[in-house]
């Protein structure tokens, strides 16, 4: 393919993609698919001649007039924003999977390029990454769980990817940052902007310690359709998606669908069954589209390399009684708690021969489970009850 090789990207190709990023809508499959097949330069050239796709060309002609890619890159760089395109060493391979994923809501395809704000390299930071997404109208329960999961991921040096929105997104970023872990925010607006505005300081903080990424060029406003395109980038950058509290019509479900379409591990955290904000997550689990997870460890087990995080099934703590043979257990059940009795009475209650009962009592006595005085037996009571 022209202009693209393994080590670097031709400057003309990068500039062409800057123009395309500026004039096209993020995730418009008419554009992304063409660019993925032909390269930015060729698509741009044909657009200029109205040849690529008549309808698309007409749509983009307006914006094409004023495009100035060199100035665009300069301005972005002044804001600490760089433009990463396929072929760059920094380009995460996972994003190319989007070329094969089914389109959703007429969005799809590999991004023309990604605008990145922050120091870490995009490919390195997404090497081991999981998205934690959920409803904006989350509850404190969901926020706590999301932050907890994100914190566990962060401590294991996994990157937490989310969308910097209110609710679960914010909690997820927060959980990662509080544990000094890497986190990445994918925005629907330009990487220089903050949406929601109240999260300006959160987003700036992520840019300082992690990475803020957007498919839309700097200055772009967040529109409804851009959120749908954004969700596909979140899915493409990560190995799995964890849905915490998504109502039935939540955008988080869109992210989960993208992750499913890309063959990523989709996970969902259940909530109270009566809770509306958890209904979408429950639906995912019910339809077997998602794996039920309840902690960061379980997420790591699901997305990590096989065998690297294995969890034991939760168990009740073992009680000394659990290891007793059947006969001793039967005798122990027959020993009274309060009023001590002699061994023959215990034998009657247990339904076991007197001699064997006495043997069993001695075993139990050695194990510290029963006590006796003057030939009468009772259970040792000072131990903790189960």
């Amino acid at each position, binding site marked *: 393919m022209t202009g693209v090789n393994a080590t670097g990207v031709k400057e003309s190709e990068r500039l062409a993609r800057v123009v395309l990023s500026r004039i096209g809508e993020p995730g418009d499959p008419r554009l992304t698919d063409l660019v993925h097949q032909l390269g930015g330069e060729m698509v741009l050239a044909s657009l200029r001649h109205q040849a690529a796709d008549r309808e698309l060309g007409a749509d983009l002609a307006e914006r094409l007039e004023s495009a100035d890619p060199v100035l665009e890159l300069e301005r972005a760089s002044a804001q600490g924003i760089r433009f990463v395109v396929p072929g760059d060493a920094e380009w995460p391979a996972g994003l190319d999977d989007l070329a094969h994923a089914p389109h959703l809501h007429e969005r799809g395809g590999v991004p023309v390029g990604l605008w990145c704000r922050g120091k870490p390299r995009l490919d390195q930071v997404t090497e081991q990454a999981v998205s934690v997404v959920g409803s904006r109208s989350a509850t404190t329960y969901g926020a706590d769980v999301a932050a907890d999961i994100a914190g566990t991921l962060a401590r294991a040096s996994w990157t937490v990817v989310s969308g910097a929105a209110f609710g679960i997104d914010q909690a997820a970023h*927060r959980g990662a940052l509080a544990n000094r872990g890497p986190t990445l925010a994918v925005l629907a607006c330009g990487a220089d902007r903050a949406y929601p505005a109240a999260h300006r*300081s959160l987003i700036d*903080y992520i840019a300082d310690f992690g990475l803020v990424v957007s498919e839309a060029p700097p200055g772009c406003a967040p529109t409804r359709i851009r959120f749908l395109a954004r969700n596909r980038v979140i899915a493409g950058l990560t190995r799995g998606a964890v849905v915490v509290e998504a109502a039935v019509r939540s955008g988080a479900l869109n992210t989960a669908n993208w992750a499913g379409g890309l063959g990523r591990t989709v996970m969902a955290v259940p909530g109270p069954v009566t*809770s509306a904000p958890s209904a979408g997550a429950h639906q995912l689990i019910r339809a077997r589209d998602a794996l039920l997870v309840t902690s960061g460890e379980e997420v790591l087990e699901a997305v990590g390399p096989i065998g690297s995080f294995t969890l034991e099934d939760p168990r009740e703590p073992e009680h000394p009684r659990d290891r007793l043979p059947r006969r001793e257990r039967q005798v122990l059940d027959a020993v009274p708690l309060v009023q001590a009795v002699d061994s023959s009475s215990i034998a009657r209650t247990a339904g076991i021969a007197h001699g064997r009962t006495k043997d069993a009592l001695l075993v139990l006595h050695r194990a510290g489970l029963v006590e006796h005085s003057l030939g009468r037996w009772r259970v040792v009571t000072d131990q903790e009850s189960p």
Partner: protein
Amino acid sequence: MVATTRTVSLQGAIGHVVDVQVDLSQGLIATALVGRPDTSISEARDRCRAAVNNSGFEWPVTRRVTVLLSPTDLPKRGPHFDLPIAVAVLAASIKDFPQEGLPAAAMIGELTLDGRVRCVPGVLPMTMAAAARGLDTVYVPEPQTEEAAMVPGVRVFGIRSLAQVIALLRGEEVPEAQEVEPLTGSPLLSWRGEERLEDLDMADVMGMADARYALEVAAAGGHHLLLTGPKGSGKTTLAERLPGLLPDLNDDESLELTAVHSLSGSLPAGAARLTRPPFRAPHHSASRTGILGGGTGRVRPGEVSKAHLGVLFLDEFPLFPTDVVEALREPLEAGEISISRGEEDAVYPARTMFVFACNPCPCGEYHPYNRDHHCTCPEVKRRAYRRKISGPIADRIDITRFVEPLRPYERTLPFDRPEPSVVIRRRVSEARLRQHKRYAAMPWRLNAHAPGPLLREQWPLTGPAALRLDAEVYAGRLTRRGAVRVHRVAWSVADLSDIDRPGVDELDVALRLRSATPLLLSSLSGLRAVPSDESEPA
């Protein structure tokens, strides 16, 4: 000869103006005191006689002295009758004593044998009662001048001795007298310095978004709050910061509170009016009398009343004696407490916000929704512990929250620092202002005190919100009383978010607050207004 002076007798927080009439006439020489005096007044006879004689006057020894305290059927108590009795006796016995000033003046003060005046508790409420009855002058012990002067429109004379009062009344030069010692207050139960509270700020509380908001709603509407959580999770931390969220008391409130403290004798000499909402945290070993009021001899207001218009924090609430807990029902519901003891009925105000705190189980580690809890209590003990919280008291608690121990992800980060108390107090003040406007014509000030029937009639829930609340009641998840309480909290939530009438969203928040279920993040005002020092680019 007859002379009349006036004073005030207190029954709880209710003051009655009492006439002290002295008649000197022929008859069996004796001093008779009639009009249902208690022991301390009966003793006044001896104190007054000695005080009069030692002040350079003469007790009428050749005639019968009859002292009447009227109205007669009102039981009277307190040593402050000394001064009006002594003055009345002298006014009756001294020739040409000017009587004109007497009916418009209230005399308050105990006398010593050498004729000096001593401080008495309750000067402020007595002065308030006197002023309300049109008396324009009060004579009070000198250290309590400021206290009496808090009541507007009253001329206050601070006096040191009986001789000084007589001189004032006769328009003579006031003689010198020894200084009067201030009333010795006894802060029996406040176990932390009051000043410490001023330094406590919500900015120091990390995480706990849920509980923070619960505190804000409670502060806005004056609702009762229950915080449960493992030991060390921050229940006390939160409760202590609640008064800091409340606005200053207004003039009426401040007078009310100061009056209660005056009654309990805990007002320091020369103290200004109390303008900050009080915070009281009696220990669970405190006596029933200490918490509710009462006592032998004089009936004193308890902690419940001293926390009037403020916060009463009952930590380790299940450890309080059952009879105390049961007796809290009245102040929880009615905002006052009545103490009946023999002849005496005293009613003290107790418009207090209760904050109950308890562990989730005897060992304090249990958490119903946390798989990692380290509780070792047997279920039987847990249940017994829980039983102490539930029942009629639980139904009167508007807001219940679990307080979780701090988790690593709640560490404060530079982009979202916890809100300081000042910011929250501003919102609370605005919410309270809205309530004052709404209830302008009503005798209550806060949502929590609005009577249920009136609330339903004048400020009802409408549409889907009303249906939802009814559904909760019919489904048995809410008692009728609970529904009223949820209704009030819904109003507070609406007031906090500047909404004209609570809708289904506000009701939902109120139901969640009551049932201890997690809140929607979008309803937490602390998160809605994340302070940002950068302006948003266009």
